[in-house]
């Protein structure tokens, strides 16, 4: 595995800041945000934020997370992104298109009961309930780099199990060439879905992998991070993590996994075919039409002055494990 070694340095003040304080401070700016606007519209989609909150003490509902039992990963050679940042900087348009919308709007998200069905071209379709997600497969911790298509990245200690284990249990047949994933569709809980085209996206969010990509040992189903069940805004109760692809492939809050014969549609590809391909492998040589993918800003402990722009690696540095999957493919064409 290719690893960017970085010397550890002292904790920044932010790491030791209490989470609620950390989130609360941003509210101040929002209140001053009449010039930064934008927030005005972002708030119309939210259920609990508004300018008038300035004068009322809002009783905040907090999404509950439980500690998990798992096989821990070894010491990370890379600086981990602090938990407060992982859980406050999210692209999860179902809860709003701003980066801080999900943490604000997802606190009341109900994940128990949950149903995840594994179906399609399989001999033994089955369904997992909420508790099954944490019991059916032995849980382990994996520290992966997450590279967003927007050219920022994080290092995240996920907890979960291999997608291959989940698929094998369903005994796929020979027609199973692709795997299609689907996020929960519940506009009552997910304000971003209220208009069928919230954030320009058609819901429910769908994603897909080729079967060999899905069976690769790196491909991971995450049910937790930093030792606890997932925060709602990170895709509770269960999400996909494909570390060598751009983050939008790692679909959140999954209710359906279907083995299929033909390449399934994928949300961002439907939206802008020229900008987001089916494969979406991290590739510094192929730019997004509107920005460079050659480098990225690694979000870890530093703030505004962090010198955190680093070179982006092919397959996000996981080439040894996955490059063979694309041996005879033109990755400029199949971006």
């Amino acid at each position, binding site marked *: 595995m290719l690893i960017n070694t970085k010397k550890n340095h002292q904790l*920044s*003040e*932010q790491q030791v800041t209490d989470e609620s304080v*950390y989130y609360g*401070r*941003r509210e*101040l*700016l929002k209140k*001053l*945000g*009449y*010039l*930064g*606007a*934008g927030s005005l*519209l972002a708030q119309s989609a939210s259920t609990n934020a508004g300018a008038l909150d300035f004068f009322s003490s809002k009783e905040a509902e907090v999404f509950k997370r439980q500690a998990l039992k798992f096989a821990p990963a070894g010491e990370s050679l890379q600086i981990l*992104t602090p938990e*407060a*940042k*992982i859980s*406050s*900087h999210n692209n999860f*348009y179902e809860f709003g*298109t701003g*980066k*801080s919308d999900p943490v604000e709007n997802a606190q009341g998200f109900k994940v128990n009961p949950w149903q995840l069905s594994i179906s399609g071209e399989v001999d033994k379709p089955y369904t997992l309930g909420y508790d099954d997600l944490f019991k059916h497969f032995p849980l382990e911790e994996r520290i992966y780099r997450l590279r967003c298509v*927007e050219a*920022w990245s994080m290092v995240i200690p996920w907890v979960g199990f291999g997608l291959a284990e989940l698929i094998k249990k369903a005994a796929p047949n020979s027609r199973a060439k692709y795997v299609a994933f689907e996020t929960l569709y519940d506009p009552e809980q997910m304000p971003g879905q209220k208009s069928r085209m919230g*954030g*320009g*996206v058609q819901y429910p969010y769908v994603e897909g992998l080729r079967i060999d990509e899905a069976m690769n040992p790196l491909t991971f189903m995450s049910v937790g991070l930093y030792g606890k069940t997932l925060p709602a805004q990170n895709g509770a109760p269960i999400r996909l993590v494909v570390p060598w692809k751009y983050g939008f492939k790692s679909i959140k809050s999954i209710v359906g996994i279907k083995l299929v014969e033909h390449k399934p549609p994928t949300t961002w590809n439907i*939206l*802008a075919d020229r900008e987001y391909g089916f494969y979406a492998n991290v590739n510094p040589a192929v*730019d997004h039409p*509107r*920005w*460079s993918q*050659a*480098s990225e*800003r690694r*979000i870890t402990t530093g*703030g*505004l*002055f962090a*010198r*955190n*722009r680093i070179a982006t690696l092919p397959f996000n540095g996981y080439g040894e494990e996955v490059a063979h999957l694309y041996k005879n493919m033109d990755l400029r064409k199949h971006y």
Partner: protein
Amino acid sequence: MQTRATGVSKEALKAVLLRNRVMLLKIAIHLLAFLPLFVLYFLAFTEQLGADPVEEVIHFTGMGAFNLLLISLLVTPVAKKYRQGYLLQIRRLVGLYSFTYAMFHLLNFLAFEVQFDLTLFFDEIIDRPYITVGMAALMILFSLAITSITALRRKMGTKWQKLHNGVYLAVLLIALHFFWSVKSDIVEPMIYFTMAVLLLILRKDKIKRWFKSS
């Protein structure tokens, strides 16, 4: 006696306020435009601006510049419609603040996004249409800001107005810059684009004349 005394002082106060209304408005503009910028950077420098302060400062200053420019373009129509000529005296200040925000917007991009990688900086300006367009708009605002100095304005004569008509092009370029910069949610850029176009429609006679004469 009591009531008469307060009556007099109220009138006096009103007169003072009226006489100084331009100055008072300017003070209000300084506070309303400068304070958010100050708070923004205070929060950013002290690591209180969320997981990615870079995105936050870029977006805030960009939207601030656009909002201020729209406000500056609203001044003349409002002053005409409600016959409040003195309002024209605040136009320059609002415009200059718009330019200030736009400069911070660019500096944020240079210092915190590309982190002084000048090759990347210039490549992005040339290769990415939305950044090219934004840069063009900033150049226009820069030329307007420089020539807003009274002495220069006098010196330029009729050329000054011609140059400053460039603001209409700038506002459209900024609307386009915003439109192209978002990933998928085009509702907000559409609203902004509509506002920009409406402000231009209010000046349709002037723009028509401008096209005819040139």
